[in-house]
């Protein structure tokens, strides 16, 4: 692989007629980062990815890779490769032919094509299936073919469009580990679009949370998760209670909530639901202002002092666990 390079957005904008899909976003990904673009559908994350790939034109701004403006280059000249959501494998070609496709386009001779495609298939552990057609493969195997096909172009940036969404939950977790392993081994930048916060947290070194065509918050995954700046980010990442209190909006992690007597507690509430989840118990309470608050308690804590639905409780938290939200 070539020396990986930094990827940067400069006031990147995408307009479709009068709608703005991506609104002057700017961000800098260091080379070799596993980054997730995270957000609800229609937030502009897919348009952003497709602009990096070159399958969508850039309306304004620029995309730089290693300091070079790639915004107007054809897809294959950018140093990026894309893995499509439904994998987009050529149904009339065998696994090997699919993987070797880009080499064939470059008129690499047949023997070398076979050899290099063979190496890629080894990387994704599919050597034994190389003569099958895509239809004859399982979802996970198809995905690995798609990965091999993208990686054979030796990209500096691999773009993944919701790569795990078509898989069942078990496979999703296995492929997640595989993606992470590949990225570590290859040392190139992965830009992974997803709407699943668990996927993003599990995989990403950095996350970029998008909403309404803008970047809502971005940075190292832990930094973003530990200190959400807006109610949207806190809610989207999950595990947070967003509370509108007289002193302003606060985000408090569900697992930082402590139960106590109603007197002198920061919040008084009434339990409306208790869910046992094995290692922990999720308890939902209504607090003044008709807000719902979830507290995650360890099973030990909960069963040490069990509560019932309808009981009045007090909720407390450590001041350091609360984050004031700007919006």
């Amino acid at each position: 692989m070539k020396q990986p390079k930094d990827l940067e957005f400069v006031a990147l904008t995408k307009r479709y007629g009068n709608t703005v899909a991506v609104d002057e976003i700017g961000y800098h990904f260091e080379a070799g980062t596993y980054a997730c673009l995270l957000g609800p559908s229609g937030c502009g994350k897919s348009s952003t990815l497709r602009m990096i790939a070159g399958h969508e034109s850039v309306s304004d701004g620029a995309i730089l890779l290693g300091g070079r403006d790639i915004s107007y280059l054809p897809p294959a000249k950018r140093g990026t490769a894309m893995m499509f959501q439904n994998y987009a494998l050529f149904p009339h070609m065998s696994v090997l032919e699919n993987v070797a496709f880009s080499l064939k386009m470059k008129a690499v001779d047949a023997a070398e094509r076979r050899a290099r495609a063979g190496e890629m298939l080894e990387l994704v552990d599919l050597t034994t299936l190389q003569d099958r057609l895509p239809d004859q493969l399982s979802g996970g195997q198809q995905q690995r073919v798609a990965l091999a096909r993208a990686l054979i172009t030796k990209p500096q940036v691999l773009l993944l469009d919701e790569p795990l969404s078509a898989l069942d939950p078990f496979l999703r977790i296995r492929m997640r580990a595989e993606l992470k392993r590949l990225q570590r081994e290859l040392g190139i930048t992965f830009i992974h679009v997803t709407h699943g916060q668990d996927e993003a947290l599990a995989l990403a070194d950095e996350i970029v949370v998008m909403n309404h065509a803008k970047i809502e918050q971005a940075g190292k995954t832990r930094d973003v998760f530990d200190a959400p700046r807006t109610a949207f980010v806190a809610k989207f990442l999950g595990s947070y209670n967003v509370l509108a209190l007289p002193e302003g909006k606060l985000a408090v992690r569900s697992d930082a909530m402590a139960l106590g007597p109603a007197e002198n507690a920061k919040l008084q509430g009434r339990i409306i639901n208790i869910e046992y989840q094995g290692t922990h118990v999720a308890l939902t309470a209504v607090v003044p202002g008709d807000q719902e608050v979830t507290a995650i308690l360890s099973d030990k804590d909960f069963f040490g002092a069990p509560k019932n639905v309808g009981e009045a409780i007090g909720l407390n938290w450590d001041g350091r666990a609360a984050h004031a939200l700007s919006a």
Partner: protein
Amino acid sequence: MRKLPESVTAWLLAAPMAIVLALFLVAPIVMIVAVSFWGATEWSIYPAFQFDNYAFLLTSEVTWRVFFNTIKYAFITWVFTLGIGFTVAYFLAFHVRSQTWQIALFLLCTIPFWTSNIIRMISWIPFLGRNGLANAALISAGVIDAPLEWLLFSDFSVILAFVHLYTLFMVVPIFNTMMRIDKSLIEAAVDAGAKGRQVLRYVIIPLTKPGIMIGTIFVVALVMGDFITVRFMSGSQSANVGRMIQNDIALLAYPSAAATAVVLLATVLMIIGALLRFVDIRKEL
């Protein structure tokens, strides 16, 4: 109510279609095959089982010429309908972005079908004739000095009419197949560095083959079986197998007509059989 055994129900369900096919497809073909072995004199035909009709047909040089001519028409028409049909379908499927426009333009293609075949054919005559519009325009533009004779009542006009009449039979199945090609396959090919022509050659054409094949079967079957177009557009100067059969029927030479029809049917079936060996169209059906 007592339930009928399953096998009886199955036969009953299949019966209506089977009867229709037996009466209107199998029986006529059997009849034609049977009659093709009958004998004929100048004034009568009589049931028999003899190979005279076939012997005469297959040893006559005229038959071979006419069959060759028919296949020539079919082949040239196929080349042009495929070229035009593929281009039109490609344009509709991949260049027209909005679905409304796609449907509108597609319907536009079918407008000629609002008039009858024969009218569409005959309307070429004043256009192509010796003193027709085409010649008049070319002369006044100074391209030619004397009217072109080969525009009408020639192989040119026959094939022109065939292409005009049957191109849509190529457009429809090809368009239909192309619409089912996942657009992300094309993006994936471009992503892998394929140029426009390579996308066409390695992705679109292979995936459009079943549609091309269905269109080909339509066009070949229609052109091989035609007699009216050849009669009108060649001014009765060229012949194809359909014309030959029509002539025999006009002379009440039914056994001979039947034998020719059987040979024609066999030829068409062989061509289609050969085509199907190349492409699996089952996915399309």
